[in-house]
């Protein structure tokens, strides 16, 4: 269990001690590897470490949920660390990068292994902070800084919501551990909605999703780890962990599931219209997490958890492939319109991306098939037909957008000549491992029925998406986007106007208030300070008037004072 502390230690080391580059890479990777072994060795049960201040005991809870998350975090994290070694090899701030990445792993581990919401909150805040650090890693780019700030602010809103939820839970039950809280009685509806807001902020679900596409300004491995495999699933973890609370507030749970379904569908729609390869993947993540939210909200924890695992595999793989593509075109080119025909120069990457695309579309017998269908089948079986419909339609959309991306990037005529190839070994083996997992990862999921209404529907729609994508994009390239030039297209391209709404409702009034305060503050506090000093000086001047220098006046004053004192004594 203590092995899991390795990334935390390494983060601190890398943050403060200057080491040669190869050492940094080796140490960072070793730390995560150690943590992975630790996660493998975890045994179910609780561990209590000791007491902390405010008499909240530090303890860890190991069960299926937490161990699964820990394994995904450290396992996929290890692969991404290895990938980063090559991807970030030329960056001058390698230490800072790996320190941030290790810190993230540590915080995520704390989050999932905590035995109570207070400790979870610490990990929660930690991953938010790590995300901020790493999105804005290239801090000289204004876009990156703005994206980091946006992510952090939205996350903070979620943090406040989570704190309120925790406060409600702890004060109503007097307990700080999960088992204690679930044994007691909490105001379920309020807590459920507050938890949803926190989870929605962290996992980029509607309405708090606007930060995720912008977060693609960070380095690609960061996007792979934090914004695909692990941090965005922290919201799902929250819903899974607090399923007793959700179960006690079925109307709230239903509402949450509906919002998750909305995210699923709308993100799928928005993904189709993106030109930036990473933004496609960002919306894809949002959509897939929507599946997880739908399942977790209505208590289908096993299905949700399985999709968390498989999604980590193929989404990380997709991001890694995107990174290779960007790297190959020199200068971090992200515009799909400028790519094309890359499967000649980047055959392995093309194959891997193809595998991942098939997996995410739910191609039969691949991992995504099992997990996605598990969710959809359970939704239908448990009486949520509308959610089922949302999921099925989105499955078709998934195939459409992912293969649009794939064909635009790898097929057709090359619109830009790639300057690099796939020479880095460190790129290849993590991607190979993930590709393998994406194919066979289904063994981790208990298969439901092999053939059913659900699997048939998703198969049909998936094929339809694939064929449409092929017809539009495989040979014709960006011309195929002509159907987006209408009103539908502009709606999708503007991402349904969420950003604009938030700008008008929140950002601009907030900035106006801040400007107002900044203008008035010197007058107010400055005036206050000056006023105090002036009145003190005035008082001193008045006192000074009493120093006349005349001895007799002084004597008179003393006498009068003595008389008053005597009178006071006499009266008492």
């Amino acid at each position, binding site marked *: 269990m203590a092995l899991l502390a390795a990334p935390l230690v390494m983060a601190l080391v890398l943050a403060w001690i200057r080491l040669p580059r190869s050492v940094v890479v080796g140490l960072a990777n070793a730390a995560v590897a150690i943590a992975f072994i630790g996660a493998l060795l975890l045994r179910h049960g609780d561990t209590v470490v000791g007491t902390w201040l405010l008499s909240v005991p530090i303890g860890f809870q190991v069960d299926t949920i937490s161990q699964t998350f820990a394994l995904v975090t450290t396992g996929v994290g290890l692969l991404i660390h290895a990938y980063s070694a090559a991807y970030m090899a030329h960056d001058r701030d390698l230490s800072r990068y790996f320190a941030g990445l290790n810190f993230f792993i540590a915080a995520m581990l704390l989050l999932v292994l905590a035995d109570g919401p207070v400790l979870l909150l610490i990990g929660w805040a930690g991953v938010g902070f790590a995300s901020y650090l790493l999105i804005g890693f290239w801090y000289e780019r204004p876009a990156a800084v703005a994206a980091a700030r946006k992510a952090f602010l939205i996350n903070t809103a979620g943090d406040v919501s989570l704190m309120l939820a925790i406060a409600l839970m702890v004060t109503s039950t007097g307990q700080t551990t999960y088992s204690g809280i679930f044994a007691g009685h909490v105001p379920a509806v309020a807590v459920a909605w507050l938890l949803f807001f926190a989870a929605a902020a962290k996992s980029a679900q509607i309405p708090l999703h606007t930060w995720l596409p912008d977060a693609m300004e960070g380095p690609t491995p960061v996007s792979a780890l934090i914004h695909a495999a692990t941090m965005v699933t922290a919201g799902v973890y929250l819903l899974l962990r607090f399923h007793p609370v959700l179960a006690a507030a079925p109307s709230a749970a239903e509402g949450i599931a509906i919002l998750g379904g909305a995210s699923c569908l709308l993100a799928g729609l928005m993904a189709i219209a993106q030109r930036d390869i990473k933004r496609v993947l960002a919306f894809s993540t949002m959509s897939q997490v929507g599946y997880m939210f739908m399942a977790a909200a209505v208590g289908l924890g096993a299905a949700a958890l399985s999709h968390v695992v498989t999604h980590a595999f193929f989404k990380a793989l997709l991001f890694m492939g995107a990174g290779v593509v960007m790297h190959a075109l020199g200068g971090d080119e992200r515009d799909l319109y400028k790519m094309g025909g890359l499967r000649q120069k980047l055959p392995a990457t093309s194959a891997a991306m193809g595998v991942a695309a098939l997996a995410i579309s739910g191609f039969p017998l691949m991992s995504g098939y099992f997990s996605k269908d598990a969710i959809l089948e359970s939704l239908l079986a448990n009486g949520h037909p509308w959610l089922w419909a949302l999921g099925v339609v989105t499955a078709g959309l998934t195939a459409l957008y992912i293969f649009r991306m794939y064909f635009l990037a790898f097929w057709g005529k090359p619109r830009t000549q790639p300057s690099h190839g796939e020479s880095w070994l460190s790129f290849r083996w993590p991607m190979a491992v993930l590709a393998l997992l994406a194919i066979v990862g289904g063994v981790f999921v208990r298969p439901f029925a092999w053939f059913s209404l659900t699997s048939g529907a998703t198969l049909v729609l998936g094929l339809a998406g694939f064929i449409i994508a092929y017809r539009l994009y495989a040979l014709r390239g960006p011309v195929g986007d002509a159907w987006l030039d209408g009103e539908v297209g502009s709606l999708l391209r503007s991402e349904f106007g969420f950003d604009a709404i938030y700008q008008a409702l929140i950002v601009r009034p907030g900035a106006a208030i801040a400007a107002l305060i900044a203008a008035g503050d010197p007058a107010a506090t400055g005036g206050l300070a000056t006023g105090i000093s002036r009145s003190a000086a005035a008082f001193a001047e008045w006192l000074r008037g009493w120093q006349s220098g005349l001895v*007799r*006046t002084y004597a*008179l004053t003393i*006498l*009068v004072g*003595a*008389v008053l004192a*005597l*009178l006071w*004594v*006499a009266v008492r």
Partner: protein
Amino acid sequence: MTLALLGAAAVAAALGVILARNPVHCVLWLIAHLVATAAIFLTLNAEFLALVEILVNAGAVMVLFLFVLSLLGSSKEPEGLFGRRGESVGALVAALAFVGAVAALSGSSMAAAAVPAAFGSVQSVGVALFGPHLLPFELTALALAVAVVSVVTLAGRSRQP
């Protein structure tokens, strides 16, 4: 009765001090006041103190005053006695208030305690001084030393060329 006479004498002499124009006259009135006070001490079984009063106060201190007066020459009091009217009136009023206040404080009209015969003798006062009140005595001696030093410094021949 004795007290009334002696008290009146003391008050009259004090008034003479503050009302006389010539400072030398003031000194003389003060000597008279001190003698009256010493007489009152005698009626209060404080023989030693009466003696000390005459020797130290009336003798040494007043002689000192006369020396200084002679050194300074006759001072011309710039103005009449009551220089600024408001000040004088205020002073008188304050003084009256003081009298009244103190008078109000004297609540105990108890009988005089019985005292041994040698109450105010040199011996008994000496025993008190060198016994329980030794520390104040020594400190007073220290204060006198300080006074001597300061007087010499202040009034000594000026060092200016």
